[in-house]
């Protein structure tokens, strides 16, 4: 069954300065369809969507909605045409209530007066939220909502403006598993009611599960549009990277000598929340994956090893000696790449160079002065070794893509030559190309004897990189699995959900 086409973008062109970002791009969207838009960073996805939502104006080409040509010169025009963007970084006012946010600047008035009819506003808000099948109090202040609910309020706001086309940019990147499930349910409900959705995401599994069609962009061009049902992950990856460029995101069986000494030993660790009794070792040269649900305490374990948190009881031994505090951890060679790189990993307004120097300051400082020439060599080496795509060391890190920003955070620690590297969700918001480069880098460091702890919610990633996978459940290590013995992602998934024994995975392709 082919549904009618609601949006037709053809021949879209856009340049910034003399750099052509979009070269005759075509994109079409059917009524009631969830259409994935994929591509590496810099492929042109967000530029295309910014043209659709009126943030940028196009240099050429046409946009048809319901067969009628539309000019979306600004966001207000896009809104009138029924297009709304659900922002990655939310555009809600935290201090206002849910209803106030939904109707911001469009509040219902008492007839003939400038006064806002609060009761009516609440009634309408409740109606929309009910339609979405969610239980949110219209009077609740937005600041108290979880990220998942904030996103739903964003969607409600768009629907209240009679939007028929929703653009969702990485909607699940900061959602928990339960929230993600709820969002998928909501997306399916929207779809059933005839809303069309453009869905931007880097997560393959998610896209194959949720979307009807996929369009892949590369270097400012549309390289593929196809039905999801006919596609495999490999085909999408190949389309994104170009034939032959697809570095394998697959597991390599590595040998960690049995005689290797444990670098870090976590002994009966108990933290004030979530973690009751956790023990494990990581040997030199070993890559250990830490799996578990969001909020299961994985990050807290990482921060305790890094000396940022105190244990209620139990201890963390590094080379057999307890870690006193963060300064001690860093000095002795522990490095942490935190989950939220923009918040905890980078000084965004500083250059690539300054960010890489920061954790290495004392090494480059002689008699109070920073030896910039010496440091620059290290910075250049780091940029080269990690293949960070930047115009130069002095480019502001804010201007780099997510994948390259993450490489800076990893690189700044690798420049210290740490003995234990902890990576907390290292590839969130990182495109597939950079993702496999990061995996390669980590593997190469482990081959040189570094111990690695990888925390990830992406099972694919854990399966690709780990030698051993620890499953955290109910405040304990529920399972300690040799990667060799885990055949499929399903097995790992079962373990994470709390099944005591991995079920034999049937029907896994």
């Amino acid at each position, binding site marked *: 069954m082919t549904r009618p086409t609601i949006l037709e973008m053809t021949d879209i062109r856009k340049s*910034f*300065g003399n*750099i*052509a*970002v979009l070269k005759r791009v075509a994109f079409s969207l059917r009524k009631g369809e969830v259409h994935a838009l994929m591509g*590496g*960073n*810099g*492929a*042109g996805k*967000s*530029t295309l969507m910014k043209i659709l939502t009126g943030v940028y104006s196009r240099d050429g080409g046409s946009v048809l909605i319901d067969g009628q040509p539309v000019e979306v010169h600004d966001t207000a025009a896009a809104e009138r045409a029924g297009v709304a963007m659900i922002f990655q970084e939310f555009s809600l006012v935290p201090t206002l209530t849910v209803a106030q946010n939904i109707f911001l600047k469009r509040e219902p008035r008492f007839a003939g007066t400038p006064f806002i009819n609060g009761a009516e506003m609440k009634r309408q808000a409740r109606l929309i939220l009910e339609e979405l099948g969610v239980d949110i109090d219209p009077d609740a202040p937005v600041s108290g909502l979880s990220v998942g609910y904030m996103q739903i309020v964003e969607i409600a706001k768009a629907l209240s403006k009679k939007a028929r086309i929703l653009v969702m940019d990485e909607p699940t990147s900061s959602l928990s598993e339960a929230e993600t499930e709820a969002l998928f349910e909501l997306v399916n409900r929207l779809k059933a009611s005839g809303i069309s959705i453009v869905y931007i995401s880097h997560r393959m599994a998610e896209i194959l599960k949720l979307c009807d069609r996929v369009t892949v962009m590369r*270097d*400012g061009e549309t390289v593929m549009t196809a039905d999801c049902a006919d596609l495999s992950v490999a085909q999408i990856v190949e389309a994104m*990277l*170009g034939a032959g*460029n697809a570095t394998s995101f697959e597991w390599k069986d590595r040998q960690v000598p049995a005689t290797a000494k444990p670098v870090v030993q976590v002994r009966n660790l108990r933290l004030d929340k979530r973690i009751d009794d956790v023990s494990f070792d990581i040997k030199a040269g070993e890559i250990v994956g830490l799996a578990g649900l969001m909020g299961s305490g994985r990050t807290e374990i990482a921060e305790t090893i890094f000396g*940022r948190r105190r244990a209620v009881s139990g201890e963390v031994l590094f080379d057999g000696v307890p870690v006193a505090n*963060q*300064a001690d951890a*860093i000095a002795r060679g522990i490095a*942490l790449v*935190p989950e939220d790189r923009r*918040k*905890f*990993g*980078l*000084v*965004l*307004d*500083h250059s690539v160079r*300054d960010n890489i*120097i*920061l*954790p290495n*300051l*004392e090494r*480059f*400082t002689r008699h*109070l*002065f*920073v030896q*910039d020439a010496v440091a620059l060599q290290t910075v250049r080496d780091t940029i080269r070794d990690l*293949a960070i*795509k930047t115009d130069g060391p002095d480019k502001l890190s804010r*201007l780099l*893509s997510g994948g390259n920003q993450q490489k800076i955070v990893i690189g*700044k620690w690798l420049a210290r030559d740490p003995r234990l590297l902890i990576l907390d969700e290292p590839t969130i918001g990182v495109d597939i*190309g950079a993702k496999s480069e990061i995996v390669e880098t980590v593997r190469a460091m482990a081959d040189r004897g570094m111990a690695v702890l990888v925390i990830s919610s992406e099972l694919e990633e854990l399966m690709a990189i780990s030698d051993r996978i620890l499953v955290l459940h109910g405040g304990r290590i529920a399972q300690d699995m040799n990667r060799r013995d885990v055949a499929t992602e399903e097995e790992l998934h079962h373990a994470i959900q709390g099944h005591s024994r991995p079920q034999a995975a049937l029907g896994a392709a």
Partner: protein
Amino acid sequence: MQSKATAAPRPPSALPKVQLQNYVVYIFFAVVLLFFSVTIGDKGFLSVMNLFNIARTTAMITVIAVAMTFVISAGELDLSVGSTAALAALTCGLVMQAGFGWPVAVLAALVAGLAVGCLNGFFVTLIGIPSFLVTLGMMQFIRGLDMRVTYTNPVSISNQSFNSLFGSGNLFGVPSLLIWSLVIAVLGHVVLKYTGFGREILATGGNRMAAEYSGVKTRRVKFAAFLLSGAAAALAGMLYSGMMQTARFNFGEGAELMAIAAVILGGTSLFGGRGTILGTFAGSLLIGTINNGLIIMGLDVSEQMMVSGGIIILAVAFGKKPTA
């Protein structure tokens, strides 16, 4: 690698015009200088005497502003510097009146300034109160203290070594006030730009959490910035008293705002993370030059205030980065 290099979309704001905006303070300074040279050059604006005069009257603001650059770059603010300057001046004067030599008095004044900085640092970094509030309260408290110690009576300073060293004297024909401000500016520039401490200040102000996670002890860094600020305020207070050969409770009134204006004019980000002492120095001179020129043009105080206030807003507007 290069096969995969793509034409990354650049937001229009990343185009070269950003460059010019970094130099807006120097451009404004040049324009103002040119304007006054043409209009009042023949009325003595360009005389060496007058140029030294500008340097003399801006010295205190410069000294305070240099330390303020550290505080603002670290993501904080210090409004207490004006009253601290007066406190240091009075301390200095009273200690000399009590019969001690000037080195003891100078030391006492510095201790007073450091004590205020220490209190500010304590409340901001250990109790966690925003520096705007802490130093606003401190500004008021210290000004009250200034008035209380001598019941608003001035303390005259007769020690000529002190006066000539800290304000009225010359070295090889160059006013000591100018030398002080140059020394402090150069020192500040070197520390902010070339030392590990300077980098830590900027990283702390740029993203405190990221700095923490990179091993920077951000509380210690901020505390140090407040100590610097207190010490600089004390020096500024001594420069006031050396110039006036007396110490008064009302020294440095409004100096905190002038200093902040100079810092921001110079291109330092009000939100931290980005700062230059050279810019601050130019910003301070710009304010001093405007005030001086307007006086020579014959504007009265009310008109001077309006014009210089307007110019400050204009200059900051031109220097604004277009990115949201």
